[in-house]
């Protein structure tokens, strides 16, 4: 081989490696708009700009989002509609697929001074950005360029806007949430097994245990699905009159004790009752003997594979395991929701945490903050405004394949959305009168529910079990709790106090202690030692700061 040929090959390989290292995904579209200031057109929020405005942003995508062939996050129904209807061009500086990745990338963008014009933050990032004076005071744009409908969300929920305001000035638009109706968790039971058992009443913990043992005797496996993070086992707290957060994330549910002091659920005396039952369940096989090494994915695998027929979960279980259960077993093998039983058969309370998690904020250096308000208003208009009229094609373009979330930080949710949606979808399904299905979300849930009822299409099972199953869907049970105020709201009705950041992994202490008690290596009394350690290593700081900020 000649020397010159060797040199050529070496250079070629080096160039290829450099090219590979510097290459991007090539998906960034051609930009035609301007990021310079463009006068806001007179009139309502929906009047388009005369000159195309270019807004940069970032987004965290879901793994289950599906775009039509040829589309991508950069060019899809939302981005096209923004351009066509508002003359606003949105480009994504970067995209992630996971909360942790998003937080890390955003922190890097903050640190490196490469923040986009508009982006979504959590409360900790909001506070850090406020401290660094990097957020724009958007009060003027909030009042003048945001739709009246969104501003009226303050009437439904006057507390959330306060969390993004300082001295009467507004620094972000809360994303809001689907409503209190989606907060309480339920206990889901395999329908075919439950009916084969005679659909017994399950008002007490004893009845629950009897049902679980019956399933085990009939079908093998174990009684109730749970996993090593303890998150789902803690969902059963209301059965024992105790309300809990996710120990893996060091999250707690805060409510006052008899003295009025706000305390974490794990410190309330009822938690000992829960521990006694959980340890008993482990001994009796109601909890899997391997639960301490079963992660979240394997827990769901066990449910789908029929190793257990009971699972505490949120109201959206029909989307989670429903289609797989139907595919693997039979069309009656999905799970149906039931209210949690209690030890003495009394009414269970649904626990409600402070629901707002995200805030859409505007970079202090952005030139067209009004565009962000217009884009937020547009999402609300498409998804929740009763006066919006969309063609079937438009509607499916915005919502199929989970694309209702593909508007990124320009997403916003009507805090009454799910309550209204449930009422109207339920009414339409039971009367056939579809005249009240005035939002795209309502039409989608109604259509999906019908698709399951009439065609047994598993894709419709989620909507059916959330809203469409007459007197047996999750929102039926949750609406009962809401209407009768059988709810307990966290006393920490707002973001966590900043002092929370002075502690580290306090949830680990709880999780380790609880595991030892459930697995039988320690008695329930051992939890006194666990709590002492928890208080000494951060728990006291948490409790004091919650009481300082949210106590009486």
């Amino acid at each position, binding site marked *: 081989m000649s020397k010159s040929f060797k040199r050529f090959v070496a250079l070629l390989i080096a160039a290829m490696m450099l090219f590979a290292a510097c290459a991007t995904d090539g998906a960034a579209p051609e930009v035609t708009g301007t990021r310079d200031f463009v006068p806001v057109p007179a009139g309502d929020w929906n009047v388009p700009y005369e000159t195309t405005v270019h807004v940069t942003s970032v987004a965290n995508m879901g793994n289950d989002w599906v775009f039509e062939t040829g589309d991508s996050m950069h060019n899809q129904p939302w981005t096209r509609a923004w351009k066509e209807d508002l003359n606003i061009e949105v480009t994504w500086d970067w995209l992630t697929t996971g909360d942790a990745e998003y937080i890390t990338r955003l922190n890097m963008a903050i640190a490196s001074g490469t923040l986009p014009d508009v982006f979504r933050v959590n409360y900790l990032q909001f506070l850090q950005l406020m401290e660094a004076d990097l957020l724009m005071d958007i009060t003027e744009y909030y009042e003048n360029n945001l739709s009246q409908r969104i501003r009226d969300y303050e009437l439904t929920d006057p507390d959330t806007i306060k969390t993004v305001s300082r001295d009467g000035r507004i620094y972000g638009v809360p994303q809001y949430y689907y409503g209190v109706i989606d907060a309480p968790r339920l206990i889901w039971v395999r329908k075919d097994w439950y009916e084969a058992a005679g659909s017994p009443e399950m008002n007490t913990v004893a009845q629950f245990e009897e049902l679980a043992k019956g399933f085990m005797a009939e079908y093998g496996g174990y009684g109730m699905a749970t996993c*090593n993070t303890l998150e789902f086992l803690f969902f059963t707290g209301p059965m024992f009159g105790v309300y809990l957060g996710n120990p893996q*994330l060091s999250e707690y549910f805060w409510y006052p004790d008899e003295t009025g002091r706000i305390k974490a659920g794990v410190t309330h005396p009822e938690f000992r009752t829960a521990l006694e039952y959980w340890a008993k369940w482990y001994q009796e096989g109601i909890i899997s003997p391997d639960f301490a090494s079963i992660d979240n994915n394997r827990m769901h695998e066990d449910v789908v594979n029929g190793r257990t027929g009971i699972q505490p979960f949120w109201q959206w279980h029909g989307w989670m395991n429903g289609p797989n259960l139907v595919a693997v077993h039979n069309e009656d093998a999905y799970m149906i929701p039931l209210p949690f039983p209690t030890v003495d058969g009394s009414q269970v309370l649904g626990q409600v945490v402070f629901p707002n998690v995200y805030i859409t904020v505007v970079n202090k250096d952005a030139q067209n903050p009004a565009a962000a308000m217009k884009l937020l208003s547009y999402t609300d208009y498409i998804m929740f405004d009763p006066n919006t009229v969309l063609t079937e094609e438009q509607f499916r373009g915005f919502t199929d394949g989970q694309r209702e979330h593909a508007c990124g930080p320009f997403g916003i949710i009507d805090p009454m959305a799910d309550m209204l949606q449930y009422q109207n979808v339920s009414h339409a399904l039971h009367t056939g009168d579809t005249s009240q299905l005035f939002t795209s979300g309502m039409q989608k849930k109604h259509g999906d529910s019908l698709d399951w009822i009439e065609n047994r299409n598993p894709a419709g099972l989620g909507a059916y079990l959330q809203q469409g199953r007459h007197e047996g869907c999750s929102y039926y049970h949750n609406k009962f709790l809401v209407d009768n105020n059988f709810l307990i709201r966290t006393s920490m009705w707002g973001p966590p106090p900043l002092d929370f950041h002075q502690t580290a992994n306090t949830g680990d202490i709880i999780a380790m202690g609880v595991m030892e008690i459930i697995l039988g290596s320690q008695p329930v009394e051992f939890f006194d030692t666990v709590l002492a350690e928890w208080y000494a290593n951060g728990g006291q700081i948490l409790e004091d700061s919650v009481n300082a900020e949210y106590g009486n």
Partner: protein
Amino acid sequence: MVKRLKKDWPYLVLLLPGVVLTFIFSYMPIYGLVMAFQDYNPGLGFGRSPWIGFENFRFIFSQPQFVRSVYNTFYISIFKIIFGVSASVIFALMLNEIRNTIIKRIFQTIVYIPNFISWVIMAGILYGILASDGIVNNFLGFFGIGPIQFLSNSSVFPWTMVWTDVWKTFGFGTVVYLAAITSIDPGLYESAVIDGAGRFRQTISITLPMMGPIIMLMTVLALGTVLNAGFDQIYNLYSPAVYSTGDIIDTFVYRLGLQNGRFAIGTAVGMFKSVVSLVLISLSLLVAYKVADYKVF
């Protein structure tokens, strides 16, 4: 020098991307270590975040979870080294006794294969094998033992980590030691045979002593990375039930720094680990030089 440059410049160009990437991804981030001494606020960046001296380190060392994770790291790592080296040496000696080359290579390949399987996949396999109704517990059940909670019993978990790591990695060590064995002068064995030595005596008196320097070298070099107790393995297999004995520095940093967003604290722990590792690596290289005449530079 200039002449050599002129001759070798294509190869240096070939090296350039690697050097550039190493500089970008391995050297430039070192600047981020300043976070360990700051109350870091991403909004303020490295330049404006307030300096707090060693406060992050004080906080870390006051956390019982951290102290525990340091202990666990050393415990798991050291036993991995001891049993890993022993298993590799013993298996290499056994393989060396197999005269049929095909069978020898088949065994060598079989023990080497797990080395190529990622811990994510291996964890899935181990969950099944080590479950209370898995193959291992079923086997132990024949002898009236168990079931043993290999992955959720805090006393058993560190040993599960040690043995599964040994199982996965000893094939690689075996290859190294087998190579060392083949380089032993055959004359020594011939002399031993004339003196009436059997296979076992040859192994004890010739093979093992001749392998001494390479065993020592591999062990000493492994000691330099003793703080890397196996993040991939433990992260995929541990749970709160075994934090008390299975949580290592890396998993602790992951939960604290990334999951909880405590970047400055996570950096401080990472820096602590780097400094200790630097000392250990320097010591191990020194010992390797003294004992096995092994030099890196």
